[in-house]
């Protein structure tokens, strides 16, 4: 028997009666929605986690629960404990008598779940490895490293934080804000925000009655206020306001004006949803979480699945589902864009998207892609004087690169944000591994970039329809200054079908186009 002054850890093997009893004692009573904890524990027993051992860490001081405790639970008549139980999961059998040296198992560490000692919805701060089985088709982009300490030994888990609303200090909106903010703090250097602070920031400008208990949730403007208060620049779109923008989506999701009214409405709904998903996709691809809102619920988009065999006209057609952290159902849940089962939550239910970006980024992703798409399409469609209507693209297809002719007829654009340091490291690797022409790579490497750049890859179905992700390639790319005003020439590099142009952001000078034969296609960027 240990004295209470000692930290208490207990090792249990998954599936044993002792484990089940101990787990039940830690988690029960579980009032409210048990779905997230049930789904998560079930997932942890299965592939790819295959959890074998759980280490129960008792009397754990969780700073997020401490925030909820000091703001709300400590004031209640009922004596709520100030501490939590933290469950550490490993996919290896650790001897039950282990009392130290957990670091030996660091490679088999799957992450943790904090269980709050509250009445309702006790699944607190949770960080687990992403459950990726097929790396060619599953991409969870929003991952950050979280250090974990067991008796002074450091382990780490790379994941997306999850929390279930406790419904007293936060509802789904606050839970989504917390997940997004905690991730941004680890990945992009923002500070941590605690649950009570988030609730306070959300309600600082728009008083709508008592702030606590917070079961009434937040309205759309309060979510924007909270993001503003946390210093996270946000941009939003609603599904019924996008009809005039994202026109490139309309060719793939057309509305037939002559169709019967019901069918036309259905087509318009699909088109709007595709436009909203297209906007969100650029940010998710950039490892920036997106808050999705239905008519009454909010959750966070963090990744996507990918279908390489689709013949697509626009990138979003390759995305069958987004991965979301949904406080109602659990972490890393797949949500289909265009589902067959209407009763399940899908992107068809989404009404709003709120995207965030690092402070240094002022140009929005959709605007960056407009810059890239317009300069590439205009370039290929430019008529060559004195050549009876012949275009640059036409000449590329007939004379310079007949092998690319079929790619040029249907272009797909994929835009994402990258730190310039990461981009330069990528270039070095690509040059070293001969995935990119060394002359082009060297020119790109030596340019002076802002901290973040938008990169638009130009590709086509022929180059992307490859089951193995490493075989997917692109026909070119455009690099955009992420701090450029939207209506200026923000392009820094245009490299398409062997043609290269560099543009000086300081002087506004566009250097002469250069032709570098056989420098395209090159490797499509893998972001996870």
């Amino acid at each position, binding site marked *: 028997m240990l004295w209470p002054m000692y930290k208490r850890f207990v090792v249990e093997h998954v599936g044993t009666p002792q484990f089940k009893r101990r787990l039940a004692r830690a988690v029960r009573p579980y009032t409210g929605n048990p779905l997230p904890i049930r789904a998560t524990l079930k997932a942890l027993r299965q592939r790819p986690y295959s959890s074998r051992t759980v280490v129960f860490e008792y009397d754990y001081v969780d700073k997020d629960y401490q925030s909820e405790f000091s703001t709300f639970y400590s004031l209640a008549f009922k004596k709520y404990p100030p501490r939590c139980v933290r469950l550490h999961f490993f996919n290896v059998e650790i001897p039950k008598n282990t009392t130290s040296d957990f670091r030996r198992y660091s490679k088999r560490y799957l992450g943790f779940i904090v269980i709050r000692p509250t009445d309702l919805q006790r699944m607190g701060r949770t960080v687990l490895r992403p459950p990726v089985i097929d790396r060619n088709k599953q991409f969870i982009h929003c991952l950050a490293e979280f250090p974990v300490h067991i008796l002074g030994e450091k382990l780490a888990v790379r994941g997306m934080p999850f929390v279930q609303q406790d419904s007293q200090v936060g*509802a*789904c*909106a606050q839970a*989504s804000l917390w997940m997004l903010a905690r991730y941004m703090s680890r990945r992009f250097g923002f500070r941590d925000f605690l649950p009570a602070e988030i609730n306070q920031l959300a309600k600082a400008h728009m008083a709508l009655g008592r702030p606590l208990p917070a*079961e*009434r*949730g*937040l*309205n*759309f*403007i309060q*979510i924007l206020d909270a993001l503003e208060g946390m210093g996270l620049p946000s*941009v*939003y*779109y*609603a599904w*019924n*306001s*996008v009809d*005039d*923008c994202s*026109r490139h989506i309309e060719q793939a999701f057309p509305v037939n004006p002559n169709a019967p009214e019901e069918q036309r409405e259905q087509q318009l709904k699909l088109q709007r949803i595709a436009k909203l998903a297209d906007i969100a996709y650029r940010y998710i691809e950039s490892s920036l979480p997106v808050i999705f*809102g239905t*008519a*009454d*619920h*909010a959750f966070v988009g963090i990744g996507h699945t990918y279908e390489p065999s689709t013949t697509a006209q626009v990138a979003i057609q390759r995305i069958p589902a987004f991965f979301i952290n949904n406080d109602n159902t659990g972490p890393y849940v797949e949500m289909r864009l265009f589902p067959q089962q209407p009763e399940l939550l899908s992107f068809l239910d989404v*009404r*709003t998207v709120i995207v965030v970006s690092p402070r240094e980024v002022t140009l*929005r992703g*959709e*605007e960056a892609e*407009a*810059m890239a798409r*317009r*300069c590439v399409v*205009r*370039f290929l469609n*430019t008529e*060559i*004087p*004195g050549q009876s209507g012949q275009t*640059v693209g036409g*000449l590329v297809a007939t*004379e*310079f690169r007949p092998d690319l002719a079929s790619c040029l007829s249907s272009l797909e654009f994929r835009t994402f944000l990258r730190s310039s340091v990461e981009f330069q490291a990528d270039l070095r690797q690509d040059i070293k591994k001969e995935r990119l022409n060394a002359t082009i790579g060297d020119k790109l490497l030596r340019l002076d970039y802002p901290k973040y750049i938008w990169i638009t890859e130009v590709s086509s179905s022929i180059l992307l329809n490859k089951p193995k992700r490493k075989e997917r390639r692109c026909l070119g790319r455009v690099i955009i200054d992420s701090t450029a005003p*939207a*209506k*200026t*020439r923000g392009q820094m590099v245009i490299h398409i079908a*062997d*043609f290269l142009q560099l543009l000086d952001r300081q002087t506004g000078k*566009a250097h*002469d*186009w250069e*032709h*570098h*034969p*056989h420098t395209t296609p090159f490797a499509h960027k893998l972001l996870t």
Partner: protein
Amino acid sequence: MKATAPKQPPREAVSSAKAQQMLKKINWTNYWRNVTKDVADEVDRYEAARAKSLRSVAHLVFR
């Protein structure tokens, strides 16, 4: 004495020279004017969508 064929420039150099010739003929000022105008129109449409969005969803409550 064996006759040697005249040396041909490499195929890539020929295509590059031809590409450079083509590029010189194009009016790039026009090109950039058109690109900038296209982008500005698209940016305006996104701006309008954002302005309309707030009005249409401000009442939604997420819980």
